């Protein structure tokens, strides 16, 4: 969908093809439910097809889209075609243009799944504000289906995401929790229509009550088998799998309006650590929507910055929950958050708390003003290195050995099977142990700043140790030189790959070293494989 958006003129036809015509049925469903003369706001109008249909029915339509090219296209398309001119404006779902007396209806199709959960909540609250009492909101979206269809959906989505990654396009998020936001914010569903077995749903939602409220996510579980399973998933996949929890405001203990506010990312392991370290402390925990990425990585990328902070504060209604104006951010989010650039209407004083969540209780208790060194300086200590080594090891195994292993085991099924299992098992153990070995001995190479030098050191070390071990176990064999060279390559490559898991790599340095590293990487690998092949042939000669 993000790809379709790049070309406004073909968006509508492309989208109709993508949804197999369901979007046209959705439009007709909405047009059939509004009555003539209604003041309607369409959010995310695209090229303005639905807006034109509504205007034809005699409604006063205002249509907004965040993409200026789409707005230009929509204006050009709908210039003089309708009796009721449509007011096309550029705008986002978070700031809706107000209307004298309020809108009768707000309409949005296939937009909310492009937005994060917090933005969806802000949209709903803003929509509540600009609508007439009893006004109707019509939304049509891609939903996560219920029941057995969920499995098929998950498989399809996995395939779809793989494809998207190759195209390097943005991702849409089918709505899973959306209906839970409605009641707390001040809406009720009055009608519903589903297509494609519930994957696409249209809802007619009525504004109720005299004040809009805020949605609170259910408490995040940090005890029990389920929690530990998720922790294991986090540790074994690193950040390849994003494991998000719902962003929003959580409570630790029984917080009061005077309790401190801790801001953190919405990666499950991050929240798990914060919540466990805060046991016995009454505090608010505000999880920003960092797309399931930890604080440091998210701050280095675009996922934990001023935008996410402001969004989380607005969506959770923090001003109405607490009586003070102090919020505590993790120190490592400073790489993304910029205090001088926060807008002047941002009401909170931001403090950078300790690096590790385990120091939070002390930080809160002692009311620390200037943090001592252990709260602000990171050290790549032994337990952290071990953890990083394991995570990196599983990453390398998944990257290099998973599919070749499956393939080989299938090929050798029933034919020298045990030999194949042994060889593969040896390969798995070597890769995993090399990774942990590098992680544990990593400080040895502190004197070398560049990762290429570190890689050479570890390559040589791995080759020497492996060579000695091989000589002891099986003596000199024809494949010995090749095995040692391959082990050198493994150490060399794994150290470079480990760079992202350490605390001392700089993007500019790595990007600068990359071309030369890769050239040597291929050469060394080619030499090692040639040596092994020659050795294998040699041993076949009687």
């Amino acid at each position, binding site marked *: 969908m993000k790809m379709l958006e790049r070309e406004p003129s073909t968006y509508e036809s492309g989208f109709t093809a993508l949804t197999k015509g369901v979007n046209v049925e959705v439009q007709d469903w909405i047009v059939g439910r509004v009555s003539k003369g209604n003041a309607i706001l369409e959010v995310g109008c695209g090229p303005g097809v639905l807006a034109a249909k509504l205007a034809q029915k005699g409604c006063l339509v205002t249509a907004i889209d965040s993409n200026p090219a789409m707005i230009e296209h929509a204006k050009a398309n709908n210039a003089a075609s309708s009796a009721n001119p449509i007011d096309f404006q550029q705008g986002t779902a978070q700031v809706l243009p107000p209307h004298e007396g309020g809108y009768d209806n707000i309409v949005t199709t296939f937009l909310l799944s492009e937005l994060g959960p917090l933005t969806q909540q802000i949209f709903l609250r803003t929509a509540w504000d600009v609508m007439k009492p009893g006004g109707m909101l019509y939304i049509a979206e891609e939903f996560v289906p219920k029941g057995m269809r969920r499995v098929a959906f998950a498989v399809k989505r996995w395939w779809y995401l793989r494809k998207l990654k190759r195209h390097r396009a943005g991702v849409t998020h089918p709505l899973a929790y959306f209906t839970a936001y409605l009641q707390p914010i001040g809406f009720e569903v009055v009608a519903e229509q589903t297509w494609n077995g519930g994957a696409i749903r249209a809802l007619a939602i009525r504004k109720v009550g005299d004040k809009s409220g805020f949605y609170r996510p259910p408490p995040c579980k940090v005890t029990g088998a389920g929690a530990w399973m998720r922790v294991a998933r986090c540790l074994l996949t690193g950040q390849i799998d994003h494991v998000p929890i719902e962003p929003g405001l959580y409570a630790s203990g029984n917080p009061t309006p005077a309790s401190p506010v801790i801001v953190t990312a919405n990666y499950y392991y991050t929240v798990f650590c914060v919540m466990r370290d805060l046991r016995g402390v009454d505090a608010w925990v505000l999880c920003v929507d960092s797309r399931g990425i930890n604080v440091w990585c998210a701050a280095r990328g675009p996922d934990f910055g001023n935008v996410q902070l402001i969004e989380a504060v607005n969506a959770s209604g923090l001003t109405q929950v607490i009586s003070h104006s102090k919020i505590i951010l993790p120190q490592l989010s400073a790489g993304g958050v910029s205090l001088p650039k926060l807008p002047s209407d941002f009401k909170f004083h931001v403090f950078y708390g300790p690096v590790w969540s385990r120091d939070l209780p002390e930080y809160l208790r002692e009311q620390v003003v200037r943090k001592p060194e252990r709260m602000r300086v990171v050290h790549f200590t032994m337990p952290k290195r071990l953890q990083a080594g394991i995570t990196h090891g599983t990453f390398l195994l998944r990257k290099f050995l998973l599919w070749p292993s499956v393939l080989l085991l299938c090929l050798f099924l029933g034919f020298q099977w045990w030999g194949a299992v042994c060889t593969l098992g040896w390969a798995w153990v070597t890769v995993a142990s090399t990774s942990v070995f590098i992680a544990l001995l990593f400080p040895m190479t502190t004197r070398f700043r560049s990762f290429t030098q570190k890689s050479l050191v570890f390559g040589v070390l791995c080759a020497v140790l492996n060579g000695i071990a091989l000589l002891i176990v099986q003596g000199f064999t024809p494949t010995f030189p090749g095995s040692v060279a391959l082990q050198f390559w493994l150490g060399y490559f794994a150290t470079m790959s480990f760079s992202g898991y350490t605390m001392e*790599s700089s993007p500019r340095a790595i990007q600068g070293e990359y071309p030369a590293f890769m050239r040597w990487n291929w050469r060394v690998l080619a030499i090692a494989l040639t040596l092994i092949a020659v050795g294998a042939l040699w041993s076949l000669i009687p």
Partner: protein
Amino acid sequence: MNYVEKRLVPPQNTGGSLLSQPDTQQLLLLNLPVVINPSKCIACGLCAEVCPFGLPEKTIDNKYQIYDVERCTECSACQRNCPTGAITMHEVQGCGCLWDAAQRSKDGQNKCDSNCCQ
């Protein structure tokens, strides 16, 4: 105008050491990752507080300076949060891991792939 040019700081005093005249040229020439302009520094200490390695240190004339500049990983925490814009850095994108660098050199887009955090 790119980010570095926007932050270009004209030399304030003609005398003094090289480090007292930080500008983009110097940053590029010396290949330094980060430079603090002492004439703009108000010694608030926020850079020292946000740096994960505690690199900015207080000098005897009550300014902050980075001596161990080799250890800087260019996370930009100090530069983003400096209230007076006294800190100059290269414009860097990426998170400093091999797989990120691989993706960037492959398609030139500023996006990590599935092997990395982003």
